[in-house]
């Protein structure tokens, strides 16, 4: 599992300096986005045809009123066609046919076209993910605006009942599904190799595949609108989901696809972090962001398969009338609930942990102090990750689950707030006697801590079973998870964008607009979601379009604030587009004067990241210590690496020189 410094061979996957002499084909002849679309269309038609053919022979299916077979098969084949059009299978097929791979094209890539291709360069994948995630987030946000518009009045309905449910489901699923990779996708994929001193990730094809599944998941989910949407919200509870029309298939296939994407992304990162660290990058020197990526990736790999399995069962229940979840045919509605939440709870920690990682990475830089309690922080990440598998039944306290288990799950859920609290200990310790610089990333980090505090405390309310009897399924729960996920993760994501965009694209974002963005977003976010706690406690359930008249004022307040919140996110979008497309002000290599390894090279980093694998000399948080070594030696003397390999202790697991050629 060592990084081998290979001799110059043209078929090496990405991250190499342009070396191949072969002329690249013109962009429209190479597999890319345009061929992928063609493949997707052909695939859908083929799948639909096949589905019609199969289902006509299947009596059980014929007696059900909605024929989901062609829809599901159409989607599945559409995804396969999309991937084939992208050229995902090309190398595989060539290898199976015994032919040599295409040479040289990858390396010659530069400019905009490579972002529309299936590429093996982790930095390109990171930027693709960034743009994708912003698009998905904004789409989900638009649906949220529609929800709040409807909730302005308890009796006058802008959206009819079906349109409202459709919008609720689309908003929730778009956010929960796509935002699973909102940090790991762009920042994890881009930065982890840079942070650990590697030239590449362990499985570049897997990483690129995990990205290219997301546009398909997005399109499939949105296409549910054409079928009238799905009436279950993002949780997809059976048997309502078995009863629903064809829009439910969009949900099941899209979510399953995203689950697969998440598994691949997580798997890739775990192996990269364990096996591709540079010499000297001990576990105790690993940046906290990488720890959080590790914890998140483990959750992804272990929890998402349960989701994919459950959704597959849902699809078979809907298409071929299996009886997993339908009570009168011998199934159980509880089965789906438990399968879903066994995934669903680690999923929310998949969303929360990267937020912790980003803010823990940002605050030492802008406090000019080491991260307080490094081991505590790492223990917190791991503790949260581990415990998150033991708490899922707290979503089911009122469902009629075995009453004996409730005190147990109450205990585990209360316990999980202990490692979560470590993050605050670390933050407060880092602030102690710091020299705080309130630049935009730092503002977002502080906002994240303040928001997550409220989110976390409300979680303690929900973990208490008697208090949960009032709050379960109400707007209190909504406020809780919006505070933790949007107030926590999305604020951290925004902070990460402002912090790392100079590194990723070599472009600074406008500071003034950034500050306006932060203040408006923070104020209007709190203004939107704080009243929702009260609304829930006063008896308003989730996902309703009619509510008690006395709750109208609070709802109107929340709705107007949400429109303003949308406006503040528009400010972000304007800043992002203005800075990256119009102004394009070059960024310095290390504008924040940070010690992280990723900041010790040009912005953006060259292909291949490092000329030579660096030797890491100290941790990334050694601010304020005049005797601290620089974080790494980027030009280690020849023979250092092979010398490091010669002894079996000390230099950490890492790459070696391999074949005896000098580095």
């Amino acid at each position: 599992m060592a990084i081998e410094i290979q001799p110059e061979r043209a078929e090496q996957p990405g991250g190499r300096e342009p070396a191949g002499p072969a002329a690249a084909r013109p962009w429209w002849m190479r597999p890319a986005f345009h061929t992928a679309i063609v493949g997707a269309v052909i695939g859908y038609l083929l799948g639909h045809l096949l589905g019609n053919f199969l289902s006509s022979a299947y009596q059980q299916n014929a007696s059900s009123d909605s024929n989901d077979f062609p829809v599901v098969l159409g989607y599945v084949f559409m995804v396969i066609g999309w991937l084939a059009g992208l050229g995902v299978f090309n190398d595989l097929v060539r290898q199976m046919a015994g032919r040599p791979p295409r040479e040289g094209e990858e390396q010659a890539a530069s400019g905009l076209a490579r972002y529309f291709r299936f590429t093996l360069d982790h930095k390109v994948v990171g930027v693709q993910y960034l743009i994708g995630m912003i698009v998905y987030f904004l789409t989900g946000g638009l649906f949220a605006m529609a929800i709040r518009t409807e909730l302005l009045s308890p009796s006058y309905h802008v959206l009819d009942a079906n349109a409202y449910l459709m919008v609720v489901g689309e908003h929730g699923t778009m956010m929960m599904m796509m935002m699973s990779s909102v940090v790991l996708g762009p920042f994890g994929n881009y930065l982890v190799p840079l942070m650990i001193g590697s030239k590449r990730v362990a499985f570049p094809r897997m990483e690129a595949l995990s990205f290219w599944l997301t546009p398909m998941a997005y399109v499939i989910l949105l296409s549910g609108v054409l079928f009238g949407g799905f009436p279950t919200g993002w949780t997809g509870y059976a048997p309502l989901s078995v009863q629903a029309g064809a829009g439910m298939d969009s949900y099941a296939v899209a979510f399953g696809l995203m689950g697969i994407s998440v598994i691949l992304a997580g798997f890739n990162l775990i192996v990269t972090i364990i096996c591709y660290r540079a010499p000297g990058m001990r576990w105790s020197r690993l940046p906290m962001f990488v720890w959080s990526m590790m914890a998140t990736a483990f959750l992804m790999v272990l929890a998402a398969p349960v989701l994919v399995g459950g959704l597959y069962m849902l699809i078979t229940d809907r298409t071929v009338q299996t009886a997993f979840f339908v009570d009168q045919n011998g199934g159980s509605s509880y089965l789906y609930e438990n399968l879903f939440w066994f995934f669903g709870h680690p999923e929310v920690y998949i969303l929360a942990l990267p937020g912790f990682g980003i803010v823990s990475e940002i605050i030492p830089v802008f406090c000019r102090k080491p991260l307080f309690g490094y081991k505590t922080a790492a223990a917190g990440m791991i503790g949260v990750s581990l415990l998150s598998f033991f708490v899922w039944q707290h979503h089911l306290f009122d469902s009629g689950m075995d009453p004996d288990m409730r005190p147990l799950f109450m205990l585990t859920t209360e316990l999980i707030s202990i490692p979560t609290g470590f993050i605050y200990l670390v933050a407060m310790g880092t602030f102690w006697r710091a020299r705080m610089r309130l630049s935009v990333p730092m503002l977002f980090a502080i906002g994240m801590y303040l928001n997550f505090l409220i989110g976390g405390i409300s979680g303690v309310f929900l973990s208490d079973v008697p208090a949960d009897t009032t709050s379960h399924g109400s707007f209190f729960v909504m406020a809780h998870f919006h505070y933790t996920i949007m107030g926590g993760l999305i604020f951290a994501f925004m902070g990460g964008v402002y912090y790392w965009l100079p590194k990723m694209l070599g472009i600074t974002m406008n500071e003034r607009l950034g500050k306006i963005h932060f203040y408006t977003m923070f104020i209007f976010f709190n203004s939107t979601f704080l009243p929702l706690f009260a609304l829930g406690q006063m008896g308003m359930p989730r996902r309703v379009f009619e509510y008690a008249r006395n709750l109208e004022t609070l709802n109107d307040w929340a709705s107007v604030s949400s429109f303003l919140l949308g406006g503040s996110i528009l400010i972000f979008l304007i800043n992002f587009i203005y800075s990256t497309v119009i102004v394009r002000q070059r960024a310095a290599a290390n504008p924040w004067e940070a010690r992280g390894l990723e900041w010790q090279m040009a912005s953006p980093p060259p292909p291949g990241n490092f000329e030579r694998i660096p030797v890491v000399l100290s941790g990334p948080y050694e601010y304020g210590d005049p005797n601290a070594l620089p974080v790494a030696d980027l030009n280690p003397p020849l023979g250092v690496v092979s010398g490091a390999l010669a002894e079996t202790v000390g230099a950490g697991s890492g790459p070696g020189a391999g074949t005896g050629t000098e580095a």
Partner: protein
Amino acid sequence: MSLRARVVTLSAAFLLVAGGIVFVVVQFLVGQTPPVENYTSLAKNGQVNVTLQTSPQTTITDHPDWVTYFIKSPQTGQWVHTTFFEVPANTRVNVTIEAYDGCTPLRNPYFGHVTGTIGDVEYVNGKPVSNLNSWSGCTVQHTFAIPGLGLNVPVASPTSVNANNNLCGTSPCTSGPHQVVTFSFMTPAKGGTFRWQCFVPCGGGYVDGNGGPMATLGYMMGQMQVVAS
């Protein structure tokens, strides 16, 4: 790309995206509500007459095998495929349902009990009825229920096997075995929106019968708008 080219591309992309959003909103979010039949202007002596029919299929839409209600338009006298209608407040609404569909047992036989009408009865072909047992006889085809007003009326079906096997084949129905059900109720003094639905339920081919026509506006459930003057 030069700055000018970038700005132009950006503006074009923005217009495209904005147009797409507007299209989705108009077409899929606000554009799917069925038409509303307006009876408010026809109130005479504090009464209004509303005529509906139930049909075993909907051959005029893209869901031909779904059962559905039709409402007779007060202005043209034609059957309109909708379940949304408007009546004035504080009025006696006299409802006539021409019921062309066949029988089904109710999922909850409680809904065979007439509640909320004037006299707590319905009239099946002129004869007063207060309970219809849908399990011990082929007697109920649908219900017309407005839960917000406590109104529930089981719609009687043709009772013989022969009649049930020869139901009308095109919709809206004009001939074929049917019952005529009439009842009346008072609308409240305050205006408001009241949903109504069938409680059989009538979504054949869907688990528990509540999919399809039961989950799509305009078929087996709809809205009664009470307009305060």
